[in-house]
Structures are given as structure tokens and as C-alpha cells.
């Protein structure tokens, strides 16, 4: 196995890790605030189509800044759709599981409708912003060869960790997730904290989705996130609601998905390519089983996860 092959494989792994890491980090914050938003897949698709649409529309006139605007559009699209979910579960106390599912279905439909005018169009991929010598150099590309979104995702891991564990706002957010009634009784606005967390989760999922339409395939296709939003959800449980483990888990899934790509591309494999394609999903189930066994003892899940907030007064 040549060094070039290993480098190429590693770059693929990083690329496949990024979207689920972004969406997973967002969902982790949402769940830490005590809300379970199952609509990640829908928010990712909305982000994917918003990011692509804006970049395509303005990419010709403003090639330098259009992709950045695309990322903002993706974040805004994801956050707005998340707030629709937030309104239902926070104001009307609707069932979080069912409302999240509705968001997933809604996002799939809405993204198809918005995207129908963009099918078949292609944009310049949102690639490395470093000088070509670094971005495409044989060895330097391992560090400099990625889309800015990759560095953003990696930077968000310690940032989210720091926010949750070292800041006052993070402490309040966790308090709301652990015991909403107590947090309410000492004067914190449970709804506001949860709205903010839900919007953040939506924005991160939207950016994660945009990674598909702006970096991986630079085009729009219906249902192009192919279930990665659900993997991101599983990833949060798998990580035991810890940021470090989320990164490790996302990387692990990135490796699995890369193996699938290579098995398909080489056409040579001991097992049918479908086995590789099913592997990330099967491994998620296996991982959840192994984790659940240990986590139930520790009880690391936020205590109020998925429960409606019903103050008596």
C-alpha cells in the first residue's frame, strides 16, 4: 500500500467525518438542554439546498464570497426549520419524537421543492482556501487540503466542550437539561435556553448538510444526505453526550463509509458491496448496544431529555 493511497484514503475519511461531526455537535447541545430533535436529516437537507441555491445564484458574479454566503444560508435554513420544531415542542408541548419525525419528513419534501430548479446544476466546490502549493502538495494536503468547513467542524469540538463545561451559559444550559423545573424556579428561562439550543443545532445540521451539496458532490440531488442525519443522532448517544467521544465516533464512522467507497470503486471485495454499504448502520446498532450497557449504569443522558416542560405556575 503506497503512501499516496494512504493519504488519499485519509482525506476521504476526513471528508466523510465532517458532516456527521457538525450535525452531531449541534444535536449534542440540543440534547444537553433536554430536547430531543429527531429532525436532523430534514434540517441537513434544507441546509444542503439553501447553501447550494445561494452559491449557485451568486457564484458567477461573486465567486469569492458566494460560498461563504451559501454557508450562512445553510445555517439560517437549518436554524429556521429547527425553530418551527421549537415552537411546537416548547410553546404547544407537542410530542418531541413525533414532531422531530415530522421535521425530518417536512425537510425532505421542502428541500425537493426548493431544489427542483437546481437539479443538474454544478458549482465550484468549496475547497481549500490555502495556496495551491500547500493545498495540493503531496504531503501538505493532509493538513491544508480541506474545505474551510472541515477546520470549522474541528474547531467547534473544543469550542462546544469549553462552552458546555467552562462557561456560565453552558452551565445554565446543562441545568435546564438536567432539571428544568429547578432551573425555572431559580429564575432561568427554560424556553429561551432551549430555543437557543434548538436554533444552534439546526444551524449546525444545516452547515453539515451544505457540506454534501457544496463540497462533496458540488450539486443538488434529492435526499442527498442519505440518512447521515440519523447517524449523527446515533453518534450523540454513542458518544455518551461527550464532545471528545463524538469526534472519535464520527471519525470511526468516516472510516467505515470510506471502506464502503473503496470496496465499491475497486470492484474487488470478499463480500458483496451491499455488506459494506450496510456496515455504518449495522455498526451503529452494535455500538449503541455496547454503549447502552455501560451508560445505563452511569446515566449520562440529560435527565429531562425528550420530556415536556410543564411549570405549575
Amino acid at each position, binding site marked *: 500500500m503506497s503512501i499516496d493511497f494512504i493519504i488519499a484514503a485519509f482525506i476521504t475519511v476526513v471528508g466523510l467525518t465532517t458532516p456527521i461531526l457538525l450535525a452531531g455537535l449541534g444535536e449534542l447541545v440540543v440534547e444537553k438542554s433536554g430536547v430531543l430533535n*429527531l429532525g436532523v436529516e430534514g434540517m441537513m437537507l434544507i441546509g444542503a439546498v439553501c447553501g447550494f441555491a445561494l452559491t449557485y445564484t451568486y457564484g458567477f458574479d461573486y465567486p469569492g464570497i458566494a460560498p461563504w454566503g451559501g454557508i450562512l444560508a445553510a445555517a439560517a435554513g437549518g436554524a429556521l426549520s429547527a425553530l*418551527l420544531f421549537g415552537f*411546537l415542542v416548547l410553546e*404547544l*408541548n*407537542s*410530542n418531541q*419524537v*413525533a*414532531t422531530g*419525525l*415530522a*421535521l425530518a*419528513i*417536512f425537510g*425532505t*419534501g*421542502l428541500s*425537493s*421543492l426548493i431544489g*427542483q430548479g437546481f437539479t443538474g446544476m454544478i458549482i465550484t466546490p468549496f475547497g481549500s482556501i490555502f495556496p495551491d502549493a500547500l493545498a495540493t502538495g503531496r504531503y501538505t494536503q493532509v493538513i491544508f487540503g480541506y474545505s474551510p468547513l472541515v477546520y470549522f467542524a474541528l474547531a467547534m469540538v473544543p469550542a462546544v466542550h469549553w462552552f458546555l463545561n467552562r462557561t456560565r451559559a453552558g452551565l445554565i444550559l446543562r441545568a435546564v437539561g438536567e432539571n428544568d423545573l429547578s432551573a425555572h424556579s431559580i429564575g432561568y428561562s427554560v424556553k429561551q435556553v432551549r430555543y437557543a439550543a434548538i436554533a444552534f443545532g439546526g444551524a449546525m445540521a444545516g452547515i453539515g448538510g451544505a457540506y454534501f451539496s457544496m463540497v462533496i458532490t458540488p450539486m443538488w440531488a*434529492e435526499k442527498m444526505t442519505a*440518512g447521515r442525519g*440519523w447517524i449523527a*443522532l*446515533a453518534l450523540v*448517544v454513542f458518544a455518551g453526550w461527550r464532545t471528545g467521544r463524538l469526534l472519535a465516533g464520527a471519525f470511526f464512522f468516516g472510516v467505515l463509509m470510506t471502506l464502503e467507497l473503496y470496496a465499491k470503486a475497486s470492484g474487488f471485495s470478499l463480500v*458483496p458491496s*451491499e*455488506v459494506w*454499504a*450496510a456496515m455504518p*448502520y*449495522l455498526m*451503529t*446498532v452494535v455500538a*449503541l*448496544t455496547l454503549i*447502552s*450497557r455501560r451508560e*445505563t449504569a452511569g446515566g449520562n443522558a440529560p435527565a429531562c431529555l425528550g420530556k415536556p416542560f410543564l411549570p405549575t405556575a
Partner: protein
Amino acid sequence: MRIKLEKRPAPSVAMMVLTPVLSVLLTMLIGVIVFDFLGVDGFGAVRDIFLTPILASYKWQDVAVKAAPLVIIALGLSVGNRAQVWNIGAEGQYIIGALFAAGVGIAAGDLGGPFVVLAMVLAGILGGALWAAVPALLKTRWDVNEILSSLMLTYVAGQVLGYLVGGPWKDPNGRNFPATAPLHDNQVLPIVFPGTTVHLGVIVALILPFAFWWLMARSMFGFQVRVVGAAPQAARHGGFDTKQTIWLALVISGAMAGLAGAFEFTGALHAINLGFPSGYGFTAIIVSFLGRLNPIGCLIAGVVLAITYVGGQVAQTTVHIPSSTAGIFQAMMLFLILASDIFIRYRIRFVSRRPQAAAVAGE
């Protein structure tokens, strides 16, 4: 004036029945406005998606055939949802059910007739139940979240289907197209009304809701499911086995999804290709909620959702919107029905800020 929510002494039955109807009507209204805003013929889209399938009698058979799997799957899911067990992998159980039926059909070779068809349908039920038994086992043994495990297995089921129809079960006369060979005439589910596409599965889908109604409303099992879902602690005190309820909820919903898959294969499509998974398993979740988890409600809601499916295809050709647009309407209905849940337990009171002023105005 301001709006105040006031808790009702008892859940309102009227609201329980009324809100799904209002949700559908409101969805149509919002649809007209939003689609016009998006530059699409909103009135045309809503007319074609919701009304054309009802007004055009030649579309009725399509609606009936599409409603059958939705109703059958939703009946099973409602049992789980009542017990707060969330099976969202019905799509996978539906696929595996169809594959089990196909396996029996292939094993039977040239044999056919009622018993072979019956065996295929029963195999479908078994396949769906087995696929749903995996999340049940994981949930009861290791407390694995059934939402995620059942959904992940849906993707696995899709790959199993892809492998079988592209490999061992590929039709040798199919010009290398990944699909099973069409069923022999003696292995298909009988058509009930000659000249239509309405197969026996549609009739079963009409009868099953009443069987489920009896099961949920009149049997001990139904009572157990409702208690476990509504008050888990009371259920434990009352001696109801939570694990047993999880098992039954998942296996019953899996069996129903498998049955729907077997019917769709033997009754409607007669062959399985990569397009077989059409999202019925996910749409059935909407049916279940729109039907208020009530078996008879599921029957009505299944027909409504089937109308939007058929109508979505009509609108695709008439007002040129993607057929997936029907999905937006379906999700909107679910949003609205979930949002309106609050009216069952609360009533809205318009309270005046200045009571005196209101009294004066009243005179």
C-alpha cells in the same frame, strides 16, 4: 385582550375528533397560500393533491390500493405509539416482509394456488415480525433506543433488498435489470373486483381496523398497552410487564408492516425492484397520528394520505411540481395535528386586560 390556556377537567373528545379534520383543512389553506408565494399555482396544487383523486372516479382504485399498506402499517404502529414504544423502522420491516414472501414464492417454483399465496403472506408477516424483534431484543436486554435501532435496520433492509434483487434473485430474463422475475399468475393475490387493481389486501385493510379496535378497546392486552403508555409506574404497580409490552408492541407493528409488504408484492407489484421501498413505512407514522392512534381513525387517515399520494402524482403532471411535494403536505398535516393536541387538554380563553371596559362594551 390576551389569550389564556385553561386546563380542561377532562380531555375533550370533540377536539380529539375535530382537530384531525381541521388539520387537513388548514393544511390545504396554508398550501394554497405558501405555494402561491413560491410562484407555483397554489390553488391548482391543492385541488389536484386533495380533490382530484376524490372527484375522478377512475382514481378511486389507486387510492384504495395505496391506502391498504398505509392503513395496515399504521394499525401496528398505533399499538406501539400508545405504549410509547417508537418503531420508526416500519419501512424496513415492510421490505423484509416482501422479501420473505418472494423467498417462499421462489422456493415454491411452479407451484401456485391459494395455499402457496397464503404461505407467502404468512412468511411476510413472519419476516416483518423478525426484523422488528431485533430492536425489541436490544431494547429489553440492553436498553438500546428503539427509535435508532429500528431506523438503522431500515437501511440494512434496503441493502439486503439491493443484494438479493441484483444478485441471487435477479430475473435471468430481465435484461440485466436488478429486479425479481414477475410472479406466476397462480402466485398473485386475487383481484376482488374484476377489471380493477383492487386486490384482496385492500379488503383485509378494511377489516383489520375493526379487529384492532376490538383488541385495543376490549381486550386485556389493549388495556395493558394503554396503561404502560400512559402511566408506566402505575403499570408496574398493577403487575403489567413492561418488557412484554415492548416486545408485543414491536412484534405486532413489525408483523403488520411485513403483511403490508407481502400484500404490496403479491397483490400490487408482482415483482420487487430497487424502487420497492416507497416510504409507506414512514408515511404510516403520519397516518397513525392523524388517526389519533385509533384503529378506525387510522382507516380514515390512511385514505386521506393515500389521496395525497395519488394527488401528488396528478399535480406532478398538471401543475409541474415534484411528486415529493405531497410529502410537504403530509408533514404539514402531522405538524398541525401535533400542534392541535393542546386543544384536547386545554381550552382557550380570551381574557380582557380591563374587565370594566369589556363590561361597558357589552352593554
